[in-house]
């Protein structure tokens, strides 16, 4: 029986992000991108979740982020659950 | 007479520390204070307390910093060159407001000098050998009994004000033996809510002296200065001897004060009304007490085992009101009563 594909939600604390780009570089699924048009209070073009559905919850972004910007949650499996 | 024991000054300090509730001792050997470290090595473990021979004086003072930060009573001791190495640490300790006790059994300097007694580290002790505006409370014993008592007191004082306290002694006080009544009073115990004990059920505590945000360090400094004024008001100690009608005031501390007292007795036998004002706390300095005698006193003679260090504090107190004379020996030399007497005679116009 094939496991149902898990889905994840990423919570990005954008004010903390320094746009170092490490999460972007280490994400195996190109989920993340640095903003091209917005900056946070410190002037950084913080990270944005560009392809949320692609996330596999591998936490690579978390492991490399020096500023503990990203939190990850496993979404409930029911349909229609994603807002 | 109560039961007395014969001890040398270094051991008396050590036993005073133990009875003063010293929990941790960190030291590094150096003459002429080795008996102190040796005594602690033997006795601290017997009391279930901590003795560590540090790898250096620098390490020792920073171990004290750690232990004091953790809220226990901690102490180190050394002699002149070793105390110089502790100056950065002392500045940190004063800046972080940590209570601790440090003993300097002074020897001849500068440099490696020799191991004979000296009072050449007065400036370092009272003005601040480290960087920045800070103060140690500095006590100067003049007997083995006081070596013992002041050390025990020092821990209480340190805790009361969250401030380092120095016992400023010299090789002679460290090496000589005298009868001693051992301290029985219980140490004062104060709460230390600021100490590092694990942030359980309270906000975290931080021990620090780094304040990089604009103006914060200045505020800290102002608070320190306020504390120092409070200490000066409450803890200035002085020992006047035959001062009631003295016209010649000898000012001396520690080893030199004993000599000065003998000279004062001697002078009186010869008709010179001499007395001794012995500063017991070197910081805070007994400036007011000293000034209180200036209306009667005609001459002041300061005696030190230095080129003239404490004499500056005397002159700051006197402000030219009375002539201030000086007799000093350096580099391990100790004044003789005869020389002091000769100087007294010279000053009072009785030169023989």
């Amino acid at each position, binding site marked *: 029986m094939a496991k149902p594909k898990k889905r*994840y*939600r990423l919570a990005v*604390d954008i004010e*903390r992000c*320094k*746009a*170092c*780009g*490490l999460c972007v*570089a*280490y994400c195996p699924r190109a989920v993340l991108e640095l903003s091209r048009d917005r900056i946070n209070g410190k002037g*950084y073009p913080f990270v944005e979740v560009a392809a949320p559905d692609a996330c596999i*919850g591998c936490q690579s972004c978390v*492991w*490399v*982020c*020096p*500023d*503990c910007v*990203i*939190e*990850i*949650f*496993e979404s*409930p*499996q029911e349909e229609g659950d994603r807002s | 007479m109560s039961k007395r024991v014969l001890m040398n000054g270094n051991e008396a300090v050590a036993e005073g520390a133990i009875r003063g509730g010293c*929990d*941790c001792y*960190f030291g590094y050997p150096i003459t002429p204070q080795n008996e102190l470290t040796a005594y602690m090595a033997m006795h601290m473990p017997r009391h279930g307390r*901590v003795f560590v021979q*540090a*790898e*250096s004086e*620098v*390490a*020792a003072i*920073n*171990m004290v*910093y*750690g*232990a004091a*930060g*953790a809220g*226990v009573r901690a102490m180190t001791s050394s002699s002149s060159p070793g105390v110089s190495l502790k100056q*950065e*640490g002392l500045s*940190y300790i004063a800046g972080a407001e940590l209570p601790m006790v440090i003993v300097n059994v002074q020897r001849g300097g500068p440099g490696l000098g020799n191991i004979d007694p000296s009072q050449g580290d007065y400036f370092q002790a009272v003005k601040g050998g480290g960087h920045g505006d800070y103060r140690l409370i500095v006590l100067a014993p003049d007997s083995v009994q006081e070596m013992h008592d002041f050390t025990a007191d020092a821990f209480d004082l340190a805790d009361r004000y969250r401030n380092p306290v120095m016992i400023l002694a010299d090789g002679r006080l460290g090496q000589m033996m005298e009868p001693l009544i051992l301290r029985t009073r219980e140490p004062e115990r104060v709460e230390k809510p600021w100490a*590092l*004990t*694990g*942030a*359980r*059920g309270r906000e*975290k*505590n*931080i*021990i*620090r*002296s*780094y304040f990089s945000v604009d103006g914060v360090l200045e505020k800290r400094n102002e608070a320190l200065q306020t504390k120092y004024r409070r200490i000066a008001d409450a803890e200035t100690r002085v020992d006047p001897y035959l001062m009631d009608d003295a016209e010649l005031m000898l000012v001396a501390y520690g080893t030199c004060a004993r000599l000065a007292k003998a000279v004062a007795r001697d002078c009186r036998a010869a008709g010179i009304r001499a007395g001794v004002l012995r500063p017991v706390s070197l910081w805070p300095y007994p400036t007011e007490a000293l000034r209180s005698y200036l209306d009667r006193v005609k001459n002041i003679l300061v005696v030190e085992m230095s080129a003239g260090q404490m004499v500056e504090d005397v002159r700051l107190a006197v402000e030219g009101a009375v002539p201030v004379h000086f007799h000093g020996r350096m580099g391990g030399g100790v004044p003789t009563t005869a020389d002091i007497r000769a100087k007294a005679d010279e000053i009072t116009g009785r030169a023989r």
Partner: protein
Amino acid sequence: MTTTTEKPVFTRPQTLTDRPMAYCPGCGHGIVQTLMAGIIDELGIREKTVGVAPVGCAVETYNYFNIDMSEAAHGRVPAVATGIKRARPDLVVFGYQGDGDLASIGLAEIMHAANRGENYTTIFINNTVYGMTGGQMAPTTLAHQKTQTTPLGRDPETTGHPMRMSEIIATLDSPCLVARCAADTIPNIRKTRALLLKAFQYQLAGQGFSFIEILCTCPTHWHLSPKDSMDYIGRVLTPIFPCKTFRDRGAGHEG
């Protein structure tokens, strides 16, 4: 099996405060300190852990960790940690040090704390430069690496070769755990976490001194982007500073 509510996969460790870290973008200090916070959470020791912060870029670590902490004079972290641990053996104590702090000015202190087998954990951040003061040569600076004080590159003939601290510490008998790892790739960061966890566990078991050296980026003074800095660790640093466990006495026996 399906879940009905969101399940946290990774959330911010409780041991971290809300204060943003003042490190440069992509700095290795942040990676390691996030790991440490997670470990303190995992072991449930936040309320009995005391950290000692160095002078260096990590000087304000006490702002980031929600635990009791002490500052230490430059290089004296091991002495301060010794003082704390001897005073209160019930606390879990760690010392956090940079390579200037630990391998240069504080070399005597770290060696002697290690030799005494002080029962605390050392986290050694080797970024091959003095970060805080503007990128001067550290004892771990590579041969020919350019720094503010080796403007033509470090000359090993006159300034020495990079010091391999783990190897040096491992010559001593007392330490229970001595290892070098790197905060560069995901597997390496995971290994780093495992080592740090082990070090704290050994301390809890009374095993004595543990020493975890972590190769970390300093994008600012390496003059590389954060990602290039990460790659530089694997490409340039690890051949000279091999990641390996030099001593692991194993847990089990007290003292």
